[in-house]
């Protein structure tokens, strides 16, 4: 369904992605981990059409989308929940959610409204603040909103950039459950960039480690989790006494 070959992206003169290869089938979940500045966000941004790759191909459902711009990529059924949340802060929570479905709003308004109800069900915390300017929410509430807005796009491929950032453990868990549910019910393909490695590997089929713009370790999630290097860096050498 998604095939990425030899992807190179620059920020100005900075060569950030240095030849990324991977492919995903429908309904699979890929977790990406890596240290600060490894290029994770750049990778998702490139896939979403925010950054233009200098070289390489992104083939989605048999179509090369590497030349498309962000708004065109969305129309193909790819949604990104970006880093830093990027909500519409002066618009109400409700408007934010509805805008998430922009590319399909006119086509199936009824479905959008049903999905909207579903989001409130997923994130009950948002229910009491539907008419508040979303910029006034707490950090975690905004993060929930950003994720819910991403889900409103009802994408075939959902990309999330550190969704658990700023969320309480209970909520992190429920998000992982929601992702699982999406996968099972709709066969949504998911790419997950996470620092909460344990949670991410818990739901992923595949995982890869990105370092300095290259994939250095990849494989089934379980395998990656057992890789000693990953264990040391991302899972902790045995937890501190608790």
């Amino acid at each position, binding site marked *: 369904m998604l095939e990425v070959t030899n992807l190179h992206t620059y920020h100005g003169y900075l060569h950030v992605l240095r030849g990324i290869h991977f492919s995903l089938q429908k309904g699979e979940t890929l977790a990406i981990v890596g240290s600060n500045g490894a290029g994770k966000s750049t990778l998702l941004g490139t896939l979403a059409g925010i950054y233009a790759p200098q070289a390489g191909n992104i083939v989605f459902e048999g179509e090369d989308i590497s030349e498309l711009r962000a708004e065109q990529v969305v129309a193909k059924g790819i949604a990104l929940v970006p880093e*830093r949340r990027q909500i519409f802060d002066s618009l109400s929570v409700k408007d934010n959610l509805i805008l998430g479905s922009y590319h399909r709003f006119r086509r199936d308004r009824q479905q959008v409204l049903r999905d909207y109800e579903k989001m409130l069900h997923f994130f009950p915390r948002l229910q009491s603040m539907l008419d508040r300017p979303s910029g006034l929410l707490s950090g975690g509430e905004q993060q929930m909103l950003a994720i819910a807005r991403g889900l409103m796009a009802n994408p075939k491929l959902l990309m999330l950039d550190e969704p658990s950032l700023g969320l309480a453990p209970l909520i992190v868990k429920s998000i992982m459950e929601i992702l699982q549910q999406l996968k099972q019910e709709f066969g949504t393909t998911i790419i997950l960039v996470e620092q909460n490695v344990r949670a991410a590997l818990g739901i992923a089929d595949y995982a890869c480690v990105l370092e300095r713009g290259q994939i250095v370790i990849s494989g089934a999630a379980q395998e990656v989790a057992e890789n000693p290097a990953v264990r040391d860096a991302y899972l902790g050498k045995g937890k501190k006494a608790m």
Partner: protein
Amino acid sequence: MKTNIKLIYSRSLKGPLVLTFVLLALPFLIPSPYFLGMMVLIGFYTIVGTGLSMLMGYAGQISLGHAAFYGVGAYTSAILTAKMGMPALAGIAAGALVALIIAYIVGVPTLKLTEHYLSLATLGFGVIVFIFFKQLKGLTGGLDGFFGIPPLEIFGFEFTTDFAYYYLVWPLAICSILFARNVIQSRVGRALRSIHGSETASSALGVNTQKYKLQVFMMSAVYAAVAGSLYAHYVTFISPQLFEAMASIHFLIMVIIGGMASIWGGMVGAAVFVFLSEGLKEVIPLVMSNASGEFEIVFFGVLLVALLIYMPEGLVPALAKTWKNLRRKKDSGGQNSRNAHMELEDEKEVQVSMVGGGER
């Protein structure tokens, strides 16, 4: 880790020295009194522009009313010297002082506003001051203007020629630039810039943002007032029309053309502004005989827009960047592909960090 202050601040005196030298030689290289006159004007504008770029480019506070301070300087000095017979130097100092006080009074409430509200408030301030120039006929002569301002005299030397004025204004302009540069490259400058970056964070780090905004506002007001006083003694006639809202906008244009977040921007902008408007007067009739003023206006507008579209940061930063890129290219031996890429990237939203987001 080696510390090297040069990596953040260029403090070399080489640039300013070369510039000063060139400026000193200029009247001999181009011995045209008309050209000298232009240069004197540019000198005044440089002083105003430098102050304004401190305020706008560094501290991030827009002012659409700086012509008012220019006018306050001009009128104060004019009234004191022509009507009360004070020496011109005292007039200039008094002009600066009055501007300082007005800036303080106006700044206290105004600088609490942000962005567009600030620009409206300063615009309003400019209009109000203009109206006072116009209506206080007893003091200012109203719209008829103010006559008989004596020429500047320092220690018995009268500055009556463009030549003399040139050597008065330009050293002063260079000094004002250096002063501004020193401020920028210090604790105070960082405080100012941090206000531009995030006022909340700035105050959470102990920066008294209101105080610094006020200080820089007052500083830029003094710059404008001094330039205004000098102007008054130079032309010996002033009228309110010279200090209208449009004049404030002209200052703004100069600063932005030059590059508001660069210390030389004010000077370069002033020079471009003056030579562009004067140059068009020469060029347009050559291209189209019997074209009148309107063509200059159209071309000026079009050039302004084109300049800013291609160099949104202004001339100085754009030239600096080009220079850097050239050197880099030389170093890396013609990697043209990268440049091609950069153009491609331009098509898409490159500067994510520039895009307003929930986080910022």
